[in-house]
């Protein structure tokens, strides 16, 4: 359907205006100007911030510049989550632009994965795609691909080439019509209320009785707290790509259209703003 193709584009080209500020404790030779970027929601922080690094390296001494990392209001930002997930989870109620603090010292080993180069991001990205395909097709599609096909997925993301990426990614989105969907839906549900980073389990797009599973069914099965009972005030928002999809939306459709390039449906559960 033509309309649905537009959804893929809208998801791919989602942007978050962001202001990068140097951490005040960094020793600088002169004052560091903030740096502004439109961050792609579906990309990774360390993949799109080479310019930020270059910008701040100009004002700090080389020997003071260790591995760059990012923080928002005291929370170290995990580069291995898609940017849109980080924003929805930690900053969805912030005033734009999103203000991220940049650090070059005291890398928080206990919280963040090191990211010494883009090849580490590539490894993480491909690992996620493989894991998703293990769930969707028992790894058959991704294993049938050639190395250059894997490269095409990665280059598509890295260079922000929608058509290049989707020419290959559509293969990962296929399934036998008679099955009515993937074997399992690759999803992750994030919340900030506990230390547990996310919920990820096996969940089928269709019930054993043949009923189509919806987003609401998934939430009810995995994280019922996120749903409010009838008559009660809503406490949580279920957010994907910055929007709240209807809970009646079929999960299979969401998986095909609102998944990130890593082929996972990333769902954020966030408290309803109090004001």
């Amino acid at each position: 359907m033509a309309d649905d193709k537009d959804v893929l584009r809208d998801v791919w080209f989602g942007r978050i205006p962001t202001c990068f500020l140097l951490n005040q404790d960094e020793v600088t030779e002169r004052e560091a100007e903030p740096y502004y970027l439109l961050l792609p929601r579906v990309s990774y922080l360390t993949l799109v911030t080479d310019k930020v690094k270059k910008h701040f390296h100009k004002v700090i001494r080389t020997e003071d510049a260790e591995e760059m990392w990012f923080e928002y209001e005291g929370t170290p930002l995990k580069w291995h989550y898609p940017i849109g997930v980080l924003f929805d989870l930690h900053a969805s109620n912030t005033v734009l632009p999103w203000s991220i603090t940049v650090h070059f010292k005291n890398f928080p080993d206990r919280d963040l994965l090191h990211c010494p180069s883009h090849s580490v991001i590539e490894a993480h990205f491909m690992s996620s795609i493989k894991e998703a395909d293990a769930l969707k097709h028992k790894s058959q599609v991704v294993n049938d691909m050639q190395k250059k096909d894997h490269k095409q997925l990665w280059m598509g993301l890295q260079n922000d080439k929608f058509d290049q990426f989707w020419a290959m990614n559509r293969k990962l989105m296929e399934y036998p019509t008679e099955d009515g969907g993937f074997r399992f839906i690759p999803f992750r549900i994030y919340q900030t209320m506990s230390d547990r980073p996310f919920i990820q389990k096996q969940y089928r797009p269709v019930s054993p009785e043949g009923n189509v599973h919806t987003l609401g069914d998934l939430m009810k099965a995995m994280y019922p707290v996120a749903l409010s009972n009838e008559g009660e005030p809503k406490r949580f928002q279920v957010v994907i790509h910055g929007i709240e999809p209807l809970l009646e939306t079929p999960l299979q459709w969401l998986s095909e259209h609102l998944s990130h390039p890593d082929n996972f449906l990333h769902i954020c559960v966030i408290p309803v703003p109090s004001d």
Partner: protein
Amino acid sequence: MSLCVLDEENFHLCCQLLLQLSEQLGDGWSWEGGQGSQEGYLRKTALRSVVIDSSSVWDYEGGWSDTSCQSQSEQQEGEQEQAAVDASADTNSIKGDLEEQDEDDGVCVVSAGSSQLLQYEYHILHSCSYSTPVLYFRTCTQEGRSLSLEEVWSSVHPNYRLRLQSSPLNTITLQEHPLLGQPFFMLHPCRTEEFMRPVLQAAQDQHRSVNYVLSWLSVVGPMVGLDVPLKYSTLLHPAAPSPAEILPPCTEAASST
């Protein structure tokens, strides 16, 4: 269901059995996570004396996950000089009267250059995506400094390093622990089913029961300094086999595929 698939329920049965044996052997495994809850992991800590040879800088960045599932023979060159390292660890020499901490068994590398004592923490989790167990670990010095991926690679015995790079057993990467949200090293599970298949197939052919987790651990553990004493197996399979006495098998070898 395929013979080689380990669902969450069977994972727990295997873990329970492993815990019982570990208790008998004083091997130090414990279960972490909610009681009665399916969500949790096996945990063990150990002290190991390891030589970190920082001069042998190994290009681990080449080992990203795509290649991690394929061979990397070009990386094998330059590893020969390491082969002189003496693998003195007698992996099967666990003593019956062992206390829970046993440093001798952990001495994996003795060579020129100073060895340092490292604290290892091993976790075994279930991967619902791959339906396999997964080994996570982290390691730090006595001062509490975490080891980098590069240092971890150089602490892996050269023979295993070759195997990790050239076999389907895969590579070590830094990943987020799915229950703790903290960085851990992980042996990637995407080929686990493949290398476990012959083990399980052989067991089935010989009508033996297999503890999937234990067999798998005996393959992957030693690569990162985690030795599985042979006694686990002799406890499971006494010299005179009387299947009735053996604890319930986790993977019924006779079951059809």
